[in-house]
């Protein structure tokens, strides 16, 4: 174990942003304009510094990650584990003993997510460069959000997981509600209530599980031998277990979001500021599918096997329906660029759910890989929208056209992102989608075939948008430079800050498209173990 000041790397990576937040809160925001600009700059750079250190730590973690250790339900093969007693109370009325541990660690399922979180939150900092309104509040909230997200991916104690899960909600609410667009209050409240609604289910199941095993340790909850006989969750395949799983699944599906729990997403995306959209699409959505893999699948293997078909249908419907809705944006609604991408997210996250429901190595690996790829590609798409929104202050697809001549570099980056989203071979999205298809076909051939229509619809709406924005003739109103004073934008094309945010993502997308094994190697052992475990315990239940 590598420790610094007695704390392991995972603690550092999780709580470093809190440290950064405290520092930011201690720096006065300044009285006059000059001092304000100065402190604003300082906030930015502190955030960049903190997230960069996180990125370095996560790369370090991945490089030192032992590929042979499977993890999942085996606490001994989790890596970078840190464990301490947190809340230990005994002799409580009703509850008896309360045992909550500070228990964190990663395995092949969470390692890609940790990496994704650090990458996206580091790069989204650069997308926050233009935040002027109350920068102090913004960056401190931002850092708190990062801690919440990171905590979810490393927590191995259900209670801790839940705490981080809720912790993330609060800054998100404010980030949308204060720094958002015209209809921000509506979107923020919708997001908050919807997610809270899901968390309530999770909380109930968590408490039920706690009464069954007597601790919040996830591994205890996965070990059926530890269930007490008096618990309602005792007895594989019992109705209560199915209900508990369904509740848990709904809680996570809201976050994914799967159809029909998805309508908060378009609103939240449309109203959120660019970097928050990036985080939302890049990391937050993955928390839902990650929760399924980490909690719902191994804790209720019997229910997974029971509902497998329905879960696959939900994934399938999300794929096709999301794509149709995205395509429908051209004929219905305001042709908002962000809304289009939001619906494409629904569609792409459908692949994840479908892949997880397939219960095959290919499908599951594809699903996790798709989580990562969707994170990078969609983050990029939102940043790209942010670039023109910052300049033109509009996002309507009809407002643009012919930008290819005005912004050639931007167009190049955009084309790569769009084709990544379409699933072009050579870019990472293809590998994960193809894996999901191959895996799903083994279990549900018909679903895989229907899901295939998603790639045609995907190509349709993406190319439509690409053409609307970049091809054709430039509208009269944009014929001059974006910023005639040349104070903010010296050139019409993407500036350095934006390039810093976008180019690394381009490199990641291309690299993982050519050499997907770099990422798949991390997870394949864990995934195989998970499938084996779920299938075995699930089948035992059905005998």
């Amino acid at each position, binding site marked *: 174990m590598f420790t610094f000041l007695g704390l392991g790397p995972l603690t550092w990576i999780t709580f470093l942003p809190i440290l950064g937040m405290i520092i930011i809160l201690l720096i006065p925001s300044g009285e006059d304009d000059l001092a304000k600009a100065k402190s604003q700059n300082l906030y930015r750079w502190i955030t960049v510094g903190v997230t960069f250190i996180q990125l370095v730590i996560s790369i370090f973690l991945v490089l030192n990650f032992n590929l042979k250790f499977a993890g999942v339900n085996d606490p001994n093969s989790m890596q970078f584990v840190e464990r301490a007693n947190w809340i230990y109370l005994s002799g409580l009325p009703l509850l008896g003993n309360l045992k909550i541990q500070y228990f964190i660690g990663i395995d092949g399922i969470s390692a890609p997510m940790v990496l994704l979180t650090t990458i996206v939150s580091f790069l989204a900092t650069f997308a926050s460069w233009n935040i002027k309104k109350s920068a102090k509040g913004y960056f401190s909230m931002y850092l708190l959000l990062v801690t919440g997200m990171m905590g979810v991916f490393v927590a191995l104690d259900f209670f801790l997981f839940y705490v981080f899960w809720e912790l993330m909600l609060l800054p998100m609410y404010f980030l949308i509600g204060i720094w958002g667009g015209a209809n921000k209050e509506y979107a923020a409240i919708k997001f908050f209530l919807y997610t809270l609604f899901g968390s309530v289910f999770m909380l109930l199941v968590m408490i039920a599980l706690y009464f069954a095993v007597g601790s919040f340790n996830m591994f205890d909850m996965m070990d059926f031998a530890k269930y007490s006989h008096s618990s309602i969750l005792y007895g594989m395949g019992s109705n209560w277990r199915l209900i508990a799983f369904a509740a848990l699944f709904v809680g996570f599906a809201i976050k994914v979001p799967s159809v029909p729990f998805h*309508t908060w997403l378009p609103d939240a995306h449309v109203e959120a500021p660019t970097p928050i959209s990036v985080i939302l699409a890049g990391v937050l959505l993955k928390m839902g599918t990650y929760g399924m893999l980490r909690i719902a699948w191994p804790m209720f293997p019997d229910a997974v096997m029971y509902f497998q078909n329905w879960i696959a249908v939900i994934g399938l419907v999300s794929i096709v329906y999301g794509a149709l809705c995205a395509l*429908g944006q051209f004929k219905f609604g305001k042709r908002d660029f962000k809304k289009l991408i939001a619906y494409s997210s629904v569609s792409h996250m459908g692949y994840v759910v479908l892949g997880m429901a397939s219960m095959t190595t290919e499908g599951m690996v594809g699903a996790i890989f798709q989580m990562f790829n969707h994170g990078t590609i969609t983050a990029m798409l939102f940043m790209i929208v942010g670039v023109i929104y910052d300049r033109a202050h509009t996002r309507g697809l009809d407002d643009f056209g012919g930008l*290819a001549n005005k912004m050639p570099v931007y167009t190049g980056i955009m084309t790569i992102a769009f084709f990544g989203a379409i699933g072009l071979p050579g870019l990472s999205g293809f590998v994960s989608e193809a894996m999901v298809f191959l895996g799903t076909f083994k279990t549900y051939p018909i679903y895989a075939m229907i899901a295939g229509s998603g790639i045609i619809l995907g190509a349709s709406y993406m190319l439509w948008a690409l053409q609307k924005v970049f091809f054709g003739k430039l509208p009269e109103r944009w014929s001059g430079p974006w910023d005639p004073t040349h104070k903010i934008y010296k050139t019409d094309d993407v500036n350095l800050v934006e390039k810093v945010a976008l180019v690394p993502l381009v490199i990641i997308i291309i690299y993982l498209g050519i050499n997907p094994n770099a990422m798949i190697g991390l997870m394949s052992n864990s995934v195989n173990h998970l499938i084996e475990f779920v299938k075995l315990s699930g089948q035992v239940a059905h005998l």
Partner: protein
Amino acid sequence: MTPEMLLNLSIVILLIPILDFAFLIFFGKKLGRASGFIGTSVLGIDLILALIVAFVRLTQYPNETMQQYKFDWINLGNTSVTLGIGIDNLTAIMLIVVTLISFLVHLFSMEYMREDSRFSRFYAYLGLFTFSMLGIVIANNFLNMFIFWELVGVSSYLLIGFWYEKDSAANAGKKAFIVNRIGDLGFLIGLMIIYSTYGTFIFEDVFGKIHAGILPFNSGFWLTLMGILVFGGAIGKSAQFPLHVWLPDAMEGPTPVSALIHAATMVAAGVYLTARVYPMFTADALLFIAYIGALTAFIAATIAITQVDFKRVLAYSTVSQLGYMVMGLGVGAFTSGFMHLVTHAWFKALLFLASGSVIHAMHHSMHKAHNHDMDPQDIRNMGGLRKTMPITYITFLFATIAISGIPFTSGFLSKDGILAGTLAFGELSGHWFIPIAGFGAAAITAFYMFRLTIIAFHGKPKTSIAEHTHENNGFITIPLIILAVLSLWFFYSMNPLNPDEGWFHQRTQAPQSAVPASLMWNFMNPEKEINANENINVSNNRLHTISNELNKTGIPAFLVTHTLVSQPKVETEFKETLHHAHVPAMILSLIVAISGIILSFVYYQFKVYDPDSIVNLYPWLYKGSFNKWFFDEIYQATFINGTIGLAKVGAWFDFNVIDGIVNFVAAIGRGLGHITGIFDFHIIDGLVNLSAKISGWLGTALRKPQSGTIQAYLVLTVLGLVVLILLFI
């Protein structure tokens, strides 16, 4: 040269164009015009390497199976996805076709695209395309093929939409990509079936397992479907009916692109794929392929008759010829079908480049005359170009003759072989529609190609623009001459009438079908292998274990079992019939071609009859043909509007119903809150306020006597005293 060197060299050939692409994307702007020179010379090197590889393969290892190199691309712990590259005779020939045409198009574009503002970008895209196409060519497995298949689609998208300021160009690019994706979906589903059944994508492993009797879902139907689905990719990319609609629109791209991608190489990729995976097609799949090809050949030919846009005529001719190739493969004339791919690549590239030469000259002429309204591609504006552009005319004529199937050209050798194949197939299977469509299309092809030549090049100039055109310079004419020479017969066989003994036919024999004999045409099954096949069927399991054991030794099972049970040269009934059908086919095809040519001279050169008289006689025929049999309109009305309508409904449903429910729930919550709010305000809080109010009121009342005036107190005291006194007395 060892096989390893051969493979390494082909990797180099593959990588050179992509490096070229990357270089030009990053530095093209600074290089400006020099990027064209760089691109062309890099492709020249690539061409030389390809020639070396092809020469070595075709001379040193002419009879060996595919030499290949495999590696694990994705390692999943318990399984892995293997990719690789391979070289065999088909590959070697395709390498030459791709690199040579690409090189010539690079050269041609130096002049053609000279004034374009995105000159370097154009060369970069050409590099990307060449890379992707080479990737298809040297793939030894389905997945590799699919990967490059899609990349080719993207480079095609980028190049069709190269002049994206025009909406029509951007639309055409989009249409091409999406229509291709529909075919690719079939391909992808085919891949899913292959992977879930065989667990591998490598061609020979898959074929070996099919041969060993492993079928998807244990049914012959699924094997057929698997073949048809994979062929779906070819339907899209090779613009076969019913997905042919994108190719004519793709002519919005620059003409060199049309020559490279939409005539010679990319569209042929579908045919190449069909040839590559030929062993896995069952009889039903082959019949499907043959019908698709025949329909495409015939329908496209009938449309080409009435088109007036120079490039569109050629586009439909391309569709028609691709139909020929596919039909050839479908009926079992594998060699001729593949050969037609190669010969067609030369003369169709030539036709397109010549049309580019004409359009370029017309453009210049228009530019000089300050005329910017005329359509430089409309053949009704041309005429008489024979005199002003002699080299273009002569080379164009060469290609026209070749495509019409006149002896002493390459086109005759391949086309005749296909037609003979259709005759033999018709005779053996009874599907006579295929030869009829084939010969019919041959007649129409000759007719419309000469119509095009006569209208554009012969007679008197119809406009002053056409009158003042000039022959282009060497960048344009040299590629034309090279391609014209390649359209002659002697490159393929010394005998101008029968290619059977030529090197080409000797090295591209049809691969032995891998499907179980019961699923294959009887007349295509090897006559002497029937016994062995029965053995296989009897002891499937045993053979399976044997092939597994053999797999461990590294020798592909299929090859071993194959060499064990069959003879080196397989004789089938079909081959014999094909042999006999050769002479009748030749005579028949000559008759139809020449009558087509004569008819076209009668109508357009000598004007014995007015073409309009036929139009007036059958106006619906003319309208149908001129409007491409309304395919676009029908698709627009059904599939596109249907999808968009569905999307609209989906978006509406999402916004109003699903989100409506969410908002409704929220509204209920709000309403409840409102009611409790009212209750809380008026009743619960009301009570509290009431008690406060009462005490307040009391206080105010009691406060009054406390005036602070001593005199008042005094009065009160006295009054009190009086009261007390009165009380106590």
